[in-house]
Structure formats: structure tokens, C-alpha cells
């Protein structure tokens, strides 16, 4: 099986999607000839022509508006937002339009063909505007699906599923792992299910939940905790919306403890929704308060980014707090 980094896996998924369905298009700022500032769309214009892979003018609301129209017309646009921090000018087109297209028309029209890709997250010395994790901003929007892969294998399978899914999907890519994360990725066309979490390590004392780049950090924390005799179950949520309540609840019913981690600020972050839901579902089984290990309630800093980020040390402390409660 070939080894790929996360960018190559994404490029490969886009290539397969365009190859297997002429209705798939890729576009965005610098996506065309150059292949995107991260090179996720490299060579796609060469292979599929300028009509199917192209640069757009620099206007996110236009990119998504255009993509909504293309999707309504029956095409399958894969629009790139250069950084997730720059998705907000398109917020109206996504939240008021993409998400509600099918509902408001009673399914006469829909933009299910739409996929929006955006690199997200910190740890790359990006400061305020190249580090944000905006998944929670969108998770309050029925009609959207939100997916975050943790490694190359997942990225390929989830992206192919996202592009072919009948609903609009936001696909947030952990850019810190673009080149850092490598792994075996099947050459063939395959899909991984949307809406399903994955238990990536079984354990009995505490459930650890994360998504995207934070899964790796959480796994590292689990390792450290295991050394101290704490058995950790690690779950990758994978889909933020709709999210897999069952898998998480089952695990917490077993362990009685839950630690959730994401980079975004605490207040209003998606860990809050998960904690609220699981506290309700598992009320009588919880041995200690659900812990949230997240960014601070501030914008994302630069020089002190390491202090800001919810690293493995902070997660380990939360695990112990959970155990020692």
C-alpha cells in the first residue's frame, strides 16, 4: 500500500472524485494552475482542464455562492477556502443558503453536491488569522454536515464520502498535519462513513474524545496516562454534524468518565454540546464531571501559542482530575 501524507491523500481523493464523476469541479483562490497554496489541488487543472479546476477571484462569498448555484444545477463543486479563518465572509451563503436550500424548497432544489474544503487549526505559528478551528460556528446549523479527518487514510475516505454525500459538507483539514502526518493509504477508491465516530483505542477507565489534529495529541496523552495505570478509551468523533451520540454514550456508560479536547475556545465550543448531551444521556453513570480541555476564551495568539493550545500535558492533567474526583 502506498504511503502518503495528508495533502497527498486529499489530492488523491480529489483526483479520484474528478476522474470518476465528470460533474465534480474544484475551484477556489489559487486552486487552478498553481494547485492551491498548500498544493492540495496540484495537477488537477492539467488533468481535467481549466473548466473543471480553476482559480476564482478573491471573494469567499462569491466562491460559495457560485458553488451553491453549481450544486443546485446538478454539479458537484468542491470549493476550497484558503484558510478556515477566511470562511466567514461566506457565512451567509453557507448558513442561510447551503444549509437551508433543500428545506425551504421542500426538496424541489438542493445543493447536496456541495463540498467545502478548508485547512483549519493551530500549531503552525499562524497567529489570530491562520489558526482558527471554526467547526462550532457551523455546528449550530441544521442542514450542514461537518467532517474533520485525523490522518491521510481517514482524509481520503472521508473526503470521497463527503463529495458523494447527498448533503452539503464542510470538510475541515488539519493543516498542521498536511505534511507531518504520513501513513498507508489504499490506492483504490474507498469511502468512510459520515456521521460515525470511531473508537481508535479501547479502554475502561476514561473516555477521551477529539477530532482532527487533536486526536494525535489525545493519543499521546492516553499513552502517558496508561503509563500511570489509567486505561483510556480514545474516540475520534470524525463527524461534528450530525455527530455520533451513540458511540460516545456507549463508551461513557462503560468508563463513567469523559474528557473532550479541541483547540477552539472553551465557551461555545463543540465540547460543550457533547458534554451537555452526554451528561444527560449518562447521568447516572458519570463518576466525575466531564472535562473540557480547550483553547482559552481569547483569539488565537502567536508567540505564546504553545501555552494557548490544549496539549497532551493539559489533557493528562484533565484525565487525572477526572479519575481523582
Amino acid at each position, binding site marked *: 500500500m502506498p504511503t502518503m501524507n495528508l495533502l497527498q491523500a486529499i489530492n488523491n481523493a480529489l483526483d479520484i472524485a474528478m476522474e470518476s464523476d465528470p460533474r465534480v469541479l474544484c475551484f477556489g483562490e489559487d486552486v487552478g494552475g498553481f494547485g492551491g497554496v498548500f498544493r492540495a489541488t496540484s495537477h488537477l487543472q492539467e488533468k481535467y482542464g481549466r473548466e473543471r479546476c480553476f482559480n476564482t477571484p478573491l471573494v469567499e462569498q*462569491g466562491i460559495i455562492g*457560485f458553488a451553491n448555484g453549481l450544486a443546485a444545477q446538478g*454539479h458537484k463543486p468542491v470549493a476550497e477556502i484558503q484558510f478556515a479563518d477566511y470562511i466567514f465572509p461566506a457565512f451567509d451563503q453557507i448558513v442561510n443558503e447551503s444549509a437551508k436550500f433543500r*428545506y425551504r424548497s421542500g426538496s424541489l432544489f438542493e445543493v447536496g453536491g456541495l463540498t467545502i474544503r478548508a485547512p483549519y487549526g493551530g500549531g503552525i505559528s499562524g497567529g489570530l488569522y491562520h489558526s482558527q478551528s471554526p467547526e462550532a460556528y457551523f455546528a449550530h446549523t441544521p442542514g450542514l454536515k461537518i467532517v474533520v479527518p485525523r490522518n491521510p487514510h481517514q482524509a481520503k475516505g472521508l473526503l470521497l464520502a463527503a463529495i458523494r454525500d447527498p448533503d452539503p459538507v464542510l470538510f475541515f483539514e488539519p493543516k498542521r498535519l498536511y505534511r507531518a502526518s504520513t501513513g498507508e493509504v489504499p490506492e483504490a477508491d474507498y469511502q468512510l462513513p459520515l456521521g460515525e465516530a470511531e473508537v481508535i483505542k479501547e479502554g475502561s477507565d476514561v473516555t477521551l474524545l477529539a477530532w482532527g489534529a487533536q486526536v494525535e495529541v489525545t493519543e499521546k496523552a492516553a499513552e502517558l496516562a496508561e503509563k500511570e495505570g489509567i486505561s483510556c478509551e480514545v474516540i475520534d468523533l470524525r463527524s461534528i454534524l*450530525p455527530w455520533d*451520540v451513540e458511540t460516545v454514550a456507549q463508551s461513557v456508560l462503560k468508563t463513567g468518565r469523559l474528557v473532550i479536547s479541541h483547540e477552539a475556545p472553551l465557551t461555545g465550543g463543540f465540547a460543550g454540546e457533547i458534554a451537555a448531551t452526554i451528561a444527560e444521556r449518562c447521568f447516572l453513570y458519570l463518576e466525575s464531571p466531564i472535562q473540557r480541555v480547550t483553547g482559552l476564551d481569547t483569539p488565537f495568539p502567536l508567540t505564546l501559542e504553545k501555552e494557548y493550545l490544549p496539549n497532551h500535558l493539559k489533557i493528562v492533567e484533565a484525565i487525572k482530575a477526572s479519575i481523582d474526583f
Partner: protein
Amino acid sequence: MTTTTASQVIHEPRFMDGDEFHIATFALLQQDGTLFEGARAPELGRETARRIYHTMVLIRVLDERMLAAQRQGRLSFYMQCTGEEAAVIGSAAALDDDDMIMAQYREQGALAYRGFGIDEFMNQLFGNAEDYGKGRQMPIHYGSAKLHYMTISSPLATQIPQAAGYAYGQKLDGQGRCTITYFGEGAASEGDFHAALNMAAVHRAPVIFFCRNNGYAISTPSVEQFAADGVAPRAFGYKMHVIRVDGNDVLAVYAATREARRIAVEHNQPVLIEAMTYRLAAHSSSDDPSGYRSKKEEALWREKDPVNRMRLWMLAQEWWSDDEEKTLQEQLRREVLETMKRAEKRPPPPLASLVEDVYAEVPARLQEQLDALEAHVRRHPEAYPKSAPGLDQGGA
């Protein structure tokens, strides 16, 4: 490739503000139904002309009747097209019936021209079980897949870049279709407008941007909307073909739109049309224009009534008669009234419709929410007269 412009080099600073350029207004028909001297009517044909005129009368009747229904409390909300029928219907008539229409909200005439039935209008207006939109949107948010009329969305201007994308898709399909998108001069201030025109021009999408410049955005007059002479001069910023037309002149609108369609489809080029018209009615049933404009101004524009203007032309062509007018008016009034009465009585959409169409399939979490709601409604049927009866009938 490079940034040089081919423009002339000068050595005196010369500031321009566009005053040098004038965009004329294209007009064919005078208010008395005769053509301007030297003007030539487009090749419209008797049948198309009658279809246009019939639609105009239908929309007038529908608008009057439904506003009255709103006043009687039978309807929560309504928006009239009054004064802008020529702009909307004349342009729709210039298209092929399977070109896409992406409208703002005041373009019921375009939909009626395509053949949307009075009962279809009514079902939407009353949000009953037969509304295609399942009673989710406010009145006037029509849509029809079979008539290629995109369901209306309230957030302004969002459909404009969507139209560019839709048209781009049509170009890829290579079937020679195009998209028209309608919007007001107010909506043209939104960022989405700029995005749309620029993207359409760069990516050569066969789309017609049709601006109804009716002088107002709710209470805001166009002089507080932009400083320029209308919306048309913006086209130059995108190197887009543009024409300004008398929006109350159905012949000019038709001719301009036909030519715009030709440019769009044959050259894969977007075109901007600015139709100068006037919103004769209030913005909506919630609005009272007396707070922001004069009766005199309204009267001035009432004299330019586009429906009347076309009627006079039709009469002169002998394509229409006063008798036909009378019959049609009566027939439509009756039909609208009867259809309304039937639509009012139709049941509301069933409870389960609340969770449909959010996604292609209802997710587990949402199904749970519906189940809980259904149980709740069963416990309090008296509090939910719209949905409880449907449950008893084994629905939901």
C-alpha cells in the same frame, strides 16, 4: 499575464468620475400604445403577446385580491409586483421556457408566465399541505422545479452569485441554456452582487443580471442607495455588456432581453440589464409608503402604468379587444377567489414534515426530536390544532 494596461499614457493628472459617459435608456413604446418615431417593435407574434398580456392581467388581479386577503387577516403577508409587470414578464417572455429563473421575490409574473397555476400560487401563500415548500416559508416564496424557477430565498442578493454558478453549470452541459437572475437596485448594494458580476465575467457564465431599479428599497430612495446614475455603470467595472431599458415598456424589455440572451448563450458572456421602473404599491403588506414618499410622485408613475401601455398597444394591433379584457378580468377574479377559498381550507402540512428535507435522510437525533414532539402533541392535542388532527388520522 502582466499588469500593464494598454491604456494611453498622459502627463497631467486627470480625474474622471464617469460623468463623461452616458448610458442611454432604450425605449420603444409610448404611453399611448404607439411606438416612438423610428422605433421598431420586436418580432413578438400575436400568441406571445397575448400570453404576456394575459399574465400581466393575472398578476394585477392576483396582487389586488391577495393584498385584500391580507388586509382581511386571511393571509399573513403579501408582496405586489404592481408597476413592474412589464419588466418582469417582458423579460421572462424573451427567454426559452427551460432557461433558469432565479428571482428576488417580486417576480411572480415570470413564474405565472411559465404556467404556474393559481392553485399553485395559493398553496404556497397559505402554506398548506400541498405547498411544494411544505409551509416553511413566508408567503410569496414560490418555487417550481418543473418550470425552472428557483424557490425564493429571503436573504437578499444571495441568488446573484448562485445564478452565476448555475449558468456556469449550464455552459458545461452545453445545452444552450442560460440563467436570468432578478434583483432590486437595493439588493445590488450587497457584496454578493459584486462577487457575482465579477465571477460571471471572469468565468464567462451565460447569465443575465436583471436589475429592477424601482426607485426604492423599502423606504430608502435610490439616491441614498448609490451616488451614480443607476446600477448600469457598474457593468464597466466588470467589462460586461450592459443595457438600460425603460422597464415599463414591455416591448423594449422584451427586445433587450432577447438580445441579452443571444449574447449570453452564443458568446458565453454575462449581460446586465437595468430596467427603470417604479414600485407602485407598498414594499409589502407590512409597509405604508406614505411615510416616505409623496402621493404626487406615485401619481406621476401611475400614469406610466406598464399594463395599460401594453393594452393600448395590443388594442392597436387588434390582438386584443375591450370585450376580451372584460371577460378575462371577470374570469380571473372569479378563479382567484375560488382557488383561494379552496386553498385556505386545505390542511396544514403534517407534523413529520417539520423534520423532512433538512438532510436527504432524517438523522437519528432529529428523528428522536420528532418522536418526542409527536408524543407531546398527543398529550396536548388542544394546544396544537394544526397538527394534532393529522396525528389522529394515523399521520406523522
